[in-house]
């Protein structure tokens, strides 16, 4: 396409060397990525079900194949063979187009993800990456933002209320969380001095960005869960309220496409988080020191990359198994009033630090230590400010007699209080002594 994509003169912003790549190499890489993503999705579904099951103390899928590994394959086959229903009220073209957009855009991201450094296969030396752009990370954001069209159009074209509500929610959600996500990535761009993924991985040689840019990392992790519509941010498909949101009216393969896109997107954002914050394919610290960085060469990096990526996948499942869905207004408040201002403030801070480094000759370590000390001093001073006197905490101990409607509530007896004998029981006891054999008494006893 462009000079950059067609393997022209090496762009100065890109570290990976694609000069030996031919059209066959691209083709092989593209097919490998496709196969990798599809098998990863099958694995991810099994993984999620198994891990969530363990968290809920049950075995999870364990019938089909070893450890139930073939369960998702069986589910996929079932979906393929199901009847494909097109709703009568649907806008046919867009109804069909929507899941396609979703899957297509989800598949695009991995083109710029580096799996490892250059390796030599059959005499061809090539990086383990399909391509790289000077704007690779922006390209990923672009793919994600076009992918949302799938959800939005799917919800609208179904011509039904729940999907429409799901897609309206999804639009608002993605727009607000994409801002926080983009801003958290900006600090990585500033520190790495590049938006190319291979260059960003290369810039993490001394230190992974997750450590110095921890706030950005946290913001990214939160917004990536929001971006992929996963619990606790799965409001577009909230089962309890919207049946399953934008995909309510979809069935068979079209539904499977949405499903596929959701899981590929999870893998995508995990891979981005790995590449930008956790050193990409670089070996973790004690391992990277072995034998003069032997584990950072050849095929080893693929292992580290996949391990880190699946760490994030585990995080997704863990969060899903632990947290409850947010209410919509709380969710929006979190996005607009917490994440975006925090991300903005952090970007400004990083920019100031980088500016100081540009114009003043200060060692980064000294600078960071100075900033940490300054922050510690500020935090220390805030401890010296006396707290506002708060109302004494209610320890729940009561001295007086039991008031069943304390504070206007029907309440149980609190510590220190005694439940008075039941009025009904007293009355019954009185009656029993007077007239032991009444019909009424029998039914009361049975009910009691």
């Amino acid at each position, binding site marked *: *396409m*462009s*000079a*950059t*994509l*067609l*393997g*022209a*003169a090496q*762009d*100065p*912003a*890109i570290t990976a060397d694609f000069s030996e790549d031919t059209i066959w190499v691209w083709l092989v890489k593209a097919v490998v990525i496709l196969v990798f993503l599809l098998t990863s999705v099958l694995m991810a579904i099994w993984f999620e079900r198994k891990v969530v099951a363990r968290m809920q103390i049950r075995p999870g899928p364990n019938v089909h194949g070893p450890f139930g590994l073939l369960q998702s394959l069986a589910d996929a086959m079932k979906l393929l063979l199901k009847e494909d229903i097109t709703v009568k*009220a*649907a*806008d046919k*073209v*867009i109804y069909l*187009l929507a899941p396609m957009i979703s899957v297509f855009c989800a598949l695009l991201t991995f083109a710029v993800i580096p799996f490892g450094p250059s390796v030599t296969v059959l005499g061809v030396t090539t990086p383990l990456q399909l391509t790289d*752009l*000077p*704007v690779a990370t*922006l*390209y990923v*954001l*672009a793919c*994600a*933002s*076009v992918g*949302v*069209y799938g959800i*939005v*159009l799917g*919800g*609208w*074209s*179904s*011509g039904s209320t729940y999907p*429409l509500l799901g*897609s*309206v929610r999804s*639009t*608002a959600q*993605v*727009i607000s969380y*994409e801002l926080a996500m*983009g801003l958290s990535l900006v600090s990585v761009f500033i520190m790495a001095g590049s*938006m190319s993924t291979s260059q960003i991985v290369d810039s993490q040689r001394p230190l992974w960005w997750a450590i110095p840019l921890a706030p950005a990392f946290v913001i990214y992790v939160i917004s990536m869960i929001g971006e992929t519509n996963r619990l606790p941010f799965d409001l577009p498909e909230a089962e309890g309220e919207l049946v399953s949101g934008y995909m309510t009216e979809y069935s068979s393969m079209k539904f499977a496409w949405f499903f596929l896109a959701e899981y590929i997107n999870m893998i995508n954002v995990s891979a981005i988080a790995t590449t930008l914050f956790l050193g990409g394919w670089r070996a973790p610290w004690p391992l990277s020191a072995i034998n003069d960085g032997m584990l950072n060469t050849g095929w080893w990096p693929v292992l580290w990359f996949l391990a880190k990526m699946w760490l994030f996948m585990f995080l997704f499942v863990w969060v899903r198994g632990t947290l409850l869905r947010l209410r919509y207004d709380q969710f929006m408040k979190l996005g607009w009033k917490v994440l975006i201002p925090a991300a903005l403030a952090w970007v400004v801070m990083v920019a100031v630090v980088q500016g100081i480094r540009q114009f003043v000759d200060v060692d980064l370590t000294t600078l960071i230590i100075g900033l940490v000390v300054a922050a510690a001093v500020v935090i220390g001073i805030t401890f010296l400010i006396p707290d506002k006197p708060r109302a004494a905490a209610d320890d729940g101990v009561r001295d007086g007699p039991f008031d*069943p*409607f304390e*504070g*206007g*509530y*029907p309440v149980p007896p609190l510590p220190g209080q005694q439940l008075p004998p039941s*009025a*009904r029981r*007293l*009355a019954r006891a*009185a009656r029993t002594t007077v007239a032991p054999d009444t019909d009424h008494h029998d039914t*009361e006893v049975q009910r009691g």
Partner: protein
Amino acid sequence: MTALGAAGSPVAASPVAASLATAVADTGRTGTGEATLFWVLAPIMVLAALGLLFARKAIHAAMCVVLVMVSLAFLYVAQDAPFLGVVQVVVYTGAVMMLFLFVLMLVGVDASDSLVETIRGQRWLGLLFGVGLAVLLVGVVTRVTYPAPVGLAEANAASNPVGVARLIFGDFVFAFEVVGVLLVTAALGALVLTHRQRLVRKVGQRELARRRVAGLGKTEADRDAVERKGIAPLPAPGVYARTNAMDVPALDPQGRPIEQSVSRVLRVRGQERELEAVGVVPGPATGPVAGQLPAGPASPGLHLEAGEDGGADRHAPTPQAGAPGETAGPATPITTGRGPEVVP
């Protein structure tokens, strides 16, 4: 516009440009790859642009614009402006068009544009100006010359984003800041215009929950609107053999319709269906209506004086419990359109 503007360059395309890698900058010519891309994308873009004009549904028009935008982004990337191309997709397709879509979505699937003229003479004026614009464009495009572009290699020497950044934050920093100020002003203006002074205190979820629970200790007459809602969700509408719809009330254990089970909107509009209309005969209309607490001094069983029987205010007969292993059956005989149901 861009399609027309770029249309001239492939004329200069030469098959001699053997190397795909030859950048436009070096020769002033378009590579074969780029020419192919252009001739594939240009017709698509023109068709999509026409689709914008002639599509009946607003969403179809919006999708046509998206197609044009994405194709334009491809062309930008092909012309060695990857930053512009990607930002085009992120900003215009991902954010601006998405906001448009957000509004358009609230128009239903089967809604078409109204073709009624709201401004008199609008069509003729539109046609006039359209023709004027066309004449102007044709005039400009036919007289334009295409000199060989120079300096792209130098501009992109330190990679494309760096080159763009130097231009924006170096040569054009003032213009950039002015645009920034304009955008901030617009955002603030929108905030000010949509700001609403709160007339009453905001009642939060916690306080609402407190009041609803507290309302349980009051009599029906003393409860306000919030307290009357109770703590449990409203009952769902009825599901019967021959109907399962929002507008038919459910039955309480005594076989009487529960008014609250039908959406308030439907009730206010008078769209609620009677039970008889769906072939269900409701039970006798005596006793308290389910879903509402009895209007006693307090809720049963909470405030009992000595000797008072908690079950006394249950006027309606409670069905007898069946023997273990058997169901008790309905309290009142159910009569459908086919006649009374016989309990086996």
